[in-house]
Structure formats: C-alpha cells, structure tokens
C-alpha cells in the first residue's frame, strides 16, 4: 500500500484571471462557427438560386413568412420540429460515444408501424393505456433496431454508419411489407395504410395550440438526454469511451454495454418520433412515415454539435425552413426538391465547418486569461 504525495508547490499557472471573458470565448466558438456555416450555406444556396434566375431575397422573405413570420407558421415549424428533435437525439447520443449513426429513419418507421399495430389492437382500451402501450411498442421497436447497430459495431466490428444506413432501407422495406400485407386496412385503396386509429389512440394538441403533445415530450427528452450525458456516471463513461476507447477500456469501463445501451436509447427516442407521427399526425401507419425526418435529423444534430439542448433551436430553424417549402414552391415556381438542395448544401458546409474548431485564436480561453 502506498500513498504518494509530494509537497504542494506549483499550482495552476497562471491563476484565475478574468474568467468571464475566457468562459465567453469557450462558449462562443460552439455558436459562432455553426452560425457562420449556416450563413455560408445560405450564401451558397443564393448562388444556386441566381443560376436558376430566381431572387434569393424573395426566397428569404418567403422562408421567413412561411416558417417564422406568424403564429400560424411558427406552429407549423414546431410541428415539423418535433420529429426532427427525436431524430437528432438519435444521432447526438451515439455521437458522444464516437459513433456516427445515420439510420434514425429506420427506427422512426418501425416505431410508427409498431405503435399503429398496438393502437389498432388495443383501440378500445382507455386512452392512457393505449397510448402508453403504443409509446412502449414504438420505443422497443426503434430501440431494438439501433441497439442491433450498436451490438454489431462493438461485438462484430461492423461499421455503424454503413450498417445503420442499410438497416434503414431494410426497415422501410419491412414497413412497406407490413402496411401492404398483414397490417393493411382493406379499406385503404390508393395509399395502403394500417387501420385508422380510434379516438383513444390519438394524441391531441397542446391546449391553445395546433401542435401536439409530442413537442413537450421531445423537449423533455432533450433535457433528460443532456442530464444523462453531462451529469450521470453513464454519460461520463460514454464521453470517456467516445473520447478514447482505449482509455475507457484500461479504466475497466464496460464499453460494450455502454455502446449497446446508448444506441438502444437513441433508437427508442427515434421510435417515439414514429409513434407521435402515427398517433398525432397521420392517424395510421403508411409510406408517409418515411418522410426523411431521420436524415434531416442528422443535419440538426451536427449543427447542434451533438448537444441535446442545442438540438431544440436548430430543429425549430430547420422545421421552419421545411414548413416554408410549400409556400416557396407555389410562389416561386420551384420544385419540391429545392428545400432538399438547401438542406444538402447546409449539411456539406456544416461538415466542413467541423474542421474549423480550434483554428481561431480568439476562441482560446487561455488567451483571454493571460490578457492583462
């Protein structure tokens, strides 16, 4: 037994000086760089519009009006932000473990189908029970799906980015199979769907708004995920493993269960997004579940720097852009895919901006501390 302690002499150098500036510098980097990337992406998109002979200023004005300019459009943005938040958490949680999971779409789709199946099956039970069962079913389906991605990653060394993407395609095919086959409502003719949900199985709006309760659950999930990562031993262990898996192993941390657990949790959250799409928006499960929220969520998570709290404003912003899509389409004569072009450009610019962290001296907190 040894206890090795040398006399205390050299302490922190230099001593704590103007901390406020240093604090500000550290925080500012994570806000200024994504904002700059957003602006650069918009500039790039403006060039694209000019090449098409359209006016960027009209576009921006319509985007404002359609996404953020009125109570109506804000609610529309919030409605679209809800699945984006869940989908972004499905990227952000594994990212803290150093994993790039991009297949949240699969978990959303399967979560939706599972919820619809349970909703139809238990349709006549009291609402609380039906909704709880639907949520549980959606979470289990999504959790198993992304949990499997984590297990493949840790135990069989399968690249999680590729496997999650491929599994998303499998999930969509599985949904199509179920919706057109065993779970199909014979009455749905043009668009194969599951049986319409009964009133007890529907999630209603938040009083005074047109936005459903899923938004509240999404916000709570963000706070819970933030607490999990920043304040609990599991979150700390995940950050160690994400920062350096060898260091985590040599500390004896159970890396495998951490990876599978975090992946399953993130898949469960994406499954919840599917459940709310079914129970609050669509009323049944059908091909509309694969609306690309899972992929847009990747963009949200990266813009938010994988911070669960940062996900909220970014999802609102992108929700607004998506909400304005219809208006822009009608007024400017642009195709539906224009919004996707914008999203794609933003995503590339944001990915490139990741390389800029630590490059700007003005964000170095130590520099501000040393200042007289």
């Amino acid at each position: 037994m040894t206890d090795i302690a040398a006399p205390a002499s050299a302490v922190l150098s230099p001593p704590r000086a103007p901390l406020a500036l240093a604090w500000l510098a550290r925080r500012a980097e994570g806000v200024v760089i994504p904002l700059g990337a957003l602006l650069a992406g918009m500039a790039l998109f403006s060039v694209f519009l000019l090449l098409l002979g359209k006016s960027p200023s009209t576009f921006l004005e319509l985007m404002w009006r359609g996404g953020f300019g009125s109570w109506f459009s804000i609610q529309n943005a919030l409605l679209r932000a809800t699945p984006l938040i869940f989908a972004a958490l499905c990227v952000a949680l594994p990212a803290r473990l150093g994993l790039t999971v991009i297949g949240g779409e699969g978990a959303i789709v399967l979560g939706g189908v599972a919820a619809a199946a349970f909703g139809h099956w238990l349709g006549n039970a009291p609402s609380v029970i039906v909704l709880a069962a639907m949520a549980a079913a959606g979470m289990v389906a999504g959790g198993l799906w992304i949990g499997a991605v984590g297990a493949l990653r840790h135990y069989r060394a399968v690249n999680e980015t590729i496997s999650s993407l491929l599994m998303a395609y499998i999930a969509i095919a599985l949904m199509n199979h179920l919706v057109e086959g065993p779970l199909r409502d014979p009455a749905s003719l043009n668009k194969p769907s599951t049986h319409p949900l009964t009133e007890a199985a529907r999630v209603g709006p938040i009083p005074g708004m047109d936005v459903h309760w899923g938004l509240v659950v999404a916000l709570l999930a963000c706070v819970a995920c933030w607490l999990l990562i920043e304040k609990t031993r599991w979150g700390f262990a995940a950050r160690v493993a994400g920062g350096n898996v060898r260091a985590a192993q040599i500390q004896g941390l159970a890396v495998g269960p951490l990876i599978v657990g975090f992946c399953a949790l993130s898949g469960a959250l994406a499954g919840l997004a599917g459940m709310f799409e079914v129970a609050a928006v669509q009323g049944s499960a059908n091909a509309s579940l694969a609306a690309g929220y899972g992929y847009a969520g990747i963009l949200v998570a990266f813009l938010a720097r994988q911070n669960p709290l940062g996900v909220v404003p970014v999802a609102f912003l992108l929700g607004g852009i998506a909400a304005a899509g219809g208006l822009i389409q009608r007024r400017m004569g642009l195709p539906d895919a224009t919004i996707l072009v914008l999203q794609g450009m933003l995503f590339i610019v944001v990915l490139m901006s990741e390389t800029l962290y630590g490059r700007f001296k003005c964000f170095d907190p130590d520099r501000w501390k040393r200042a007289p």
Partner: protein
Amino acid sequence: MNAQTVPAVGVEAIGMTMRFGGFTALDDVTVKVPAGSFHALLGENGAGKSTLVKCMMGFYTPTSGDMVVNGREAVIASPKDAGALGLGMVYQHFTLVPSLTGEENLVISRENAPAVIDWGKERRDLKSFMERMPFKIPLEQPVSALAAGEKQKLEIVKQLYLGRRFLVLDEPTSVLTPGEAEEMLGLVRGMTRRGELTVLMISHKFHEVTAFADDVSVLRKGKLTGRGRVANLDRRKMAAMMIGDQAIAALDQRAPTPADAVSVLEVNAVKAKDRSGLKSIEIDGLKVKAGEIVGVAGVSGNGQKEFLEVLAGQRAREAGEIRVKNASYEATREQSRKLNVRFIPEEPLRNACAPKMTVAENIAFRTFDLDKDGKPASWISARAIRDYATSLIAQFKVKTASLSSPIQSLSGGNVQRAVLARELSGAVDLLIVSNPCFGLDFAAVAEIRARIMKARNGGAAVLLMSEDLDELLELSDRILVMSDGQLVYETPIAQADLHVIGEHMAGKH
C-alpha cells in the same frame, strides 16, 4: 559511387535561426562538422535538434542562416539539393519497402533508375559496391526478413549507394539491441576514421556519444549551450549543458524487498493472438512480488504491447489465467478497484486519456463514479471533480493553464504527470507500467522514475515494460527479456549483464 574516390563531405551550418510564427525554434545556432568527423548533437525533446537538421537538409527554409558545404557557401532549398551535394539523412524509423529485397530497394531509390532495369548488370554493380562497404547485409532477401540492426545498416548503405558522404543519423539506435547498436556505430566510426564519411548523429544516449563521437554540440530551448571535444567532456558536463540548472528529482534508495513478500501478480500459461493475428504470445510462470519492480526488456514489437493489453483486458486471451492477490483477475473496473490494480500504458495521451476532455475530467477517470465516501454514485459532481483535480495537480506538479483546458494542450511530461496523479493516488498494490518516460524531458523522466520507485518502496508490486535498458537497469529488481512473444530470460539485477540481455533480446538463444 566509389567509396575510395569520393571523399567525405564537410558541412557547416552558420547562424541558423528558425521562427514559426512568434516561436523561435532555433536561435542563431552554428554547428561545424569537418569532413571525416563524427559529430554528436545532444539535446532534450523540443530543444531544436530536429529543426536544425531539417534546416540543413532543405526540409525547412531557415529564417536566417547559411550553409557551407566543403568550404563553399551552398544554397539548399530542398532535400533534392541536399542530396546533390552529398548530404543524406537516416531516419529513426525505417523507410525501406518491406516486401522488396535489399537490392530492389537500393536500385529503386536511385533518382536516375532506368525505366527498364537490367537486373544482371545492377547485381554485378551492387556486388562490387558492397565489396567496398564495411557492412555485410544479405541483399537478396526481402527487407521484412532482416533484423532491425540489418535494416538500419541497409538504410545507411542506401545513402552511401546514392553517393551521400555526409549523413545525419536521427537517433539511429533507438530500435536496436545494445549489441546491434555497438556494431553499427563501430562500422560507421571506421568509415569516418578512413575519411570516407562524415556523420552528424542526433542522440540522447551519453554512452554512445562518449564511445563514438569526436565532437559534440548541445542544444537547449533552441540555443547552442555547449560544444567541444568529447574527450574533454564527461557525462555530467554534457548533462548540465543539456538541461541547465533545473532541479532533478532524486531516486529514493531501494528498500530491500522483504523475504516473505507475497506474489501479487501471477500469470500462468496465458496465450493470446498478437497484433498481426498470425503469431501468438505465450507468457507462463510470471510472478511479481509486493515491493519489487520486475522489468521486462525487449525490442519493440516482440509482444510487449499485446501482453499489456491482455493484462488490461483489452485483448482476449485464448488460454491461461491471471491472478492478482490470489484471486482470478479479468480487469473489470470493480476488480481493479478492489485489488488496487493500476495501469500506466505507454503514450499516455493515446492510451490513457481522452485528448479533448478537460484536465480535471481526465484526472477523474478512475473515481468519477464514486461519491466522497467511496460508494458508487449515479450522479457526478463537477465541483467534486474540480476539487479532486486541484489537489492532485498541486501534489504532482502538473503544469496546466487551467483545470478546464483540454488535456491535449499539455506538454507530454505534464500529460504523464496527470496520468500518474490519477493512477498513483490512494492505495496501490499492483502497478503495471509501459515505457513511462518515452519522449519526455530530463526533469520529467527523473521525477516519474522517482515516483515509480516510491510506489515500490511503499509495497506495490510493479511490472515495468520498457524499451529503454538504462531505465530497466536503474529501476528493476529483476529483469526478464521478452522475445518473439515469450519470456526467454530472467536475471536478478545484481547479475544483469547488458550484453547477455541484448543477445536474448535479439533472439540469439
């Protein structure tokens, strides 16, 4: 390309200054290496040795300074210019193509290698060339089949073959056994004596400098702090030039290991695949007692890394058993905590830290999931982590701008101090260490070795794997040699003979 007709080249670097932004890496350094001399360049990591050499070889354009080659001012704007003037460099790590033979490596390295190679003619030319060389190397074998010493000789031969007659050797013996190092440097020394070659050798091994070099130049923090004939200097004077007047931690006296000391670590018939997956490592009958340091010597790549990974639970073992304090040990967090087992892997930033997490968080890796009474806790407290780190940083003299700086912003020595602070606080019964001082400066090395000795004297069992024989000789109670994945030799420190150890390291028994 005739060793008799091409004489050695003399080189002078005059007033070399190199600034990177506001940082002066090299400050008005002048080094003169006359033709046919063997010159040593001494200095700690970051003293500017590599920068100086890179300026001389045209990798960097110095901020100011001149090069004189054979008495004439020369412009060296690129490594190509340096090559044309007969200046060449042999790197610390091998640059040969492992799958090609020695002959093929030599011929393709030539700048004017023909598009269609007449191998018959090349072989005849090489044969007559090799007859004039003191080095004997099997040129018809793939380089991958050569021993480290032979590879290093081939690197030197390659430079001579290319017509270089001034060679920079960058820590040329770091991957060689003592025997190989001595032979290789002896042959080079012979060539300089005969006026066929000039050598500038970067080193931090004093015994090599004393045994082989004519002159020495010493750098510290980018400045020339001393130079002279090696014959007129002793080790202490050179060390003083290298490190200045820093205080160096003294090693505690070795307390005798009690005769009845218990075995803390026992490794029985452990078998595991090595990194390539083709060979395996097999360790049997290794015991480390409380209060002793067992050193494991070996040339890098003989299974030491894999063995540490097996002990730390990072690599699956196929057979065998590891016991700590008579209990089966699987390297889980709970077991390590209960049995007081600590690991200090090599390259701490790569193997023991999360580089982007803060200094305080990195120091908390071992204890973040405990509350202040040592009970498991679900919620972590940022304040407790900070307070814990503050006291350890003071005790272990970690120099950091703040607790919330990312640990990767610290110097190598301070990263290692932070890891030691984390792993050596509290009760330690078994300490498993690998190359703890690699790449660190003098003061940090002395301090880290002192801490390991202190842990030993305090009753910890220490397993120390190191590629640095001097370190093993200084610290160990017993030395084992690892070669080709097995422990092949054991000697108590009192009877340790450097040459016998070296031969076992080279696998000659």
